[in-house]
């Protein structure tokens, strides 16, 4: 595949949004957004429906005009240019393949508009890249959803845009095909070296594909960074719960040293490294990821550098093959989620068992939010019914239904 792309040697451009604000009649979709995406990176904008991520994408594509702010592509201000004048291509959520043209003509469309030499040859090359060249003479309606998605991708990348925008292009695919397309997209991005801006509400998709993930909420970027960095050190309660699950606690800081702060959580001192905490005094919110917790059925011996909570009672055990999820009700603190690897056969504790949890103090994190602003429902990690994962799944199902109806 690498040989077939050799004729298109051009690198991506960096994208910069400066103070972008977009207001629609009645509501503000984006509030003074600053964003900088370096050339050649795979950048994901992650957020729930209605957080302004698709609007951001449409602003970059030129399909919407910002109320205020500037958009720079490769250092050039494109704020006032029309979409067809921008070195940007979009893979639309609906694919938007022209129904009256063959697959080949769809892919060659952009090349013909720019009057580039040999549009048909280049279109065939792009179709070979997505392994659909044998369907070049078909019409979009004769292709399956996955095939249409790949044609939409070929139609965009054949133009070698400085910036490729992906608007939840995998949203309508089934899970297996999604995983495959994620890998393919990543491969293509690495091969052709374009800058990808990918908009999605699927946290797994964002984390597996992107170099940098920006979590967006209510028109603002909550946190931005490498996927593992975002996951291991979330800065806000929103990120801590949108990206995976978290056990969050609140309490006042009772002592602090050069390396760590100690938070009083319902009478239990919990230690959090100073560098991993955003606030160092007063009421704070802290958290730890469920898989960092170790479950004990007997009181563990206190050890330096470990936080211990307990005793509590196991209220729910759900076995999922690789791991087991335990819910533990600790009096005065609330419910904790523990993911434990299945190192032995089956669960190690049953419902009603007395249990303690402990974790390495280095694994905790302190949030930037004022504890007062954090919704109660987020603070005590909740049952499987409203875990972030199942919310994401529900959202996807709702979206798929919406797409089918459209």
């Amino acid at each position, binding site marked *: 595949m690498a040989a077939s792309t050799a004729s298109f040697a051009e690198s991506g451009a960096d994208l910069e949004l400066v103070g972008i604000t977009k207001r629609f009649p009645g509501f503000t979709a984006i509030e003074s957004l600053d964003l900088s995406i370096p050339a050649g990176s795979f950048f994901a904008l992650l957020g729930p429906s209605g957080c302004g991520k698709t609007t951001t994408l449409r602003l970059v594509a030129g399909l919407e005009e910002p109320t205020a702010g500037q958009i720079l592509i490769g250092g050039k201000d494109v704020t006032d240019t*029309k*979409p*067809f004048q921008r070195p940007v291509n979009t893979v639309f959520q609906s694919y938007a*393949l022209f*129904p009256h043209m063959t697959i080949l003509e769809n892919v060659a469309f952009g090349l013909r508009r720019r009057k580039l030499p040999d549009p048909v040859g280049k279109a065939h090359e792009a179709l070979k890249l*997505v392994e659909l060249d044998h369907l070049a003479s078909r019409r979009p309606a004769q292709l399956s959803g*996955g095939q249409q998605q790949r044609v939409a991708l070929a139609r965009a990348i054949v*133009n070698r845009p400085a910036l490729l925008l992906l608007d939840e292009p995998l949203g309508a695919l089934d899970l297996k095909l999604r995983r495959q397309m994620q890998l393919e997209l990543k491969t293509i991005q690495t091969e052709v070296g374009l800058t990808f801006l990918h908009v999605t509400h699927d946290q797994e998709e964002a984390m597996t594909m992107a170099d940098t993930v920006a979590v967006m909420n209510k028109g603002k970027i909550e946190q931005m960074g490498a996927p593992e960095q975002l996951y291991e050190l979330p800065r806000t309660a929103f990120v801590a719960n949108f990206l995976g699950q978290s056990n969050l606690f609140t309490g006042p800081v009772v002592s602090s040293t050069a390396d760590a702060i100690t938070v009083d959580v319902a009478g239990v001192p919990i230690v959090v490294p100073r560098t991993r905490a955003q606030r160092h005094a007063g009421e704070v919110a802290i958290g730890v990821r469920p898989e960092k917790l170790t479950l004990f059925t007997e009181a563990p011996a206190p050890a330096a550098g470990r936080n211990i909570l307990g005793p509590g009672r196991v209220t729910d055990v759900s076995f999922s093959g690789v791991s087991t999820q335990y819910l533990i009700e600790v009096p005065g603190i609330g419910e904790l989620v523990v993911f434990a690897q299945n190192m032995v056969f089956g669960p190690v504790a049953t419902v009603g068992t007395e249990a303690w949890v402990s974790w390495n103090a280095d694994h905790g994190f302190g949030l930037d939010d004022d504890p007062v602003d954090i919704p109660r429902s987020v603070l005590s990690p909740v049952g499987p019914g409203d875990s972030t994962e199942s919310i994401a799944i529900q959202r996807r199902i709702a979206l798929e239904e919406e797409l089918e109806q459209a």
Partner: protein
Amino acid sequence: MAFTAFSSQAAVEQAPRKRSFIALVLLLPGIAYLLLFFLAPLISLVITSFQAPDLYGDIGDYVTAFRWENYTDAIGEYWPLILRAFGFAVVATVLALVISYPIAYFIGVKARRWPLLQSLMLTLVIAPFFISFLLRTLAWKQIMSDEGPIVQFLKSVAILPSDGHLTGTTFSVIFGLTYNFIPFMTLPLYATLERLDVRYLEAGADLYASPWTTFRKVTIPLSMPGIVSGTLLTFIPAAGDYINASRDFLGSTSTAMVGNAIEANFLVLQNYPAAAALSIVLMAVILVIVGLYVRRAGTEDLI
């Protein structure tokens, strides 16, 4: 690679078919109607077109014969009217298309956000139908008459010479045809454009097509079904029209179309075979033109 697993096409399954007598029974009235009111008159028309004058009868008496000279005579005498009819119809159709497309586009695409405005504008397009076609055409005759304000104005700014007229000219006939058939063009165009997915237009803009190119390459091809049905609904009746071109309305003897010749032969000259032959010729030419046009427009490619 991984993709090949998904490239196989699902076999298209035929819906199971069942002989249904109910369908046949439901079709009967339609078939009977067509036999009685379309096929029978058509055969009668063909027979009439070959009739010869009754040697011993009165004027207007004809006997069944195979007088094919009726056709050559009619075409020989009326070919300028046939050509004029198709010329006028083509010009009126093109004008109606050019005028209707922006209206239909506005109602069907731009006004989507305001459903009330949409229905109001559609009502305005249909509104002329509430008044008789003859009355409206007569009204235009009045408006464009020599004493009317339009002629007075055109004369005062010296666009029209002092002895010029508007009624009875090629202009007024084509104007009347265009005016009368515009709703037949606008409605099918609206029906197609109303379903136009604007995301295709965004995709066009995203793929470096200027608004004009997007219009040519995406909007027009996608609205082809509306364009084809609109032009057919305008062209076919316009080619056979005899009201607008009639001397009593907007035309004069120099603007007569084939419809006027058919009318005169049937009702005034009582030369039924000639009128029938002209009708058959008109029908045949329309069929040929429409057949070529539909093939050319390639509507079968549209989904």
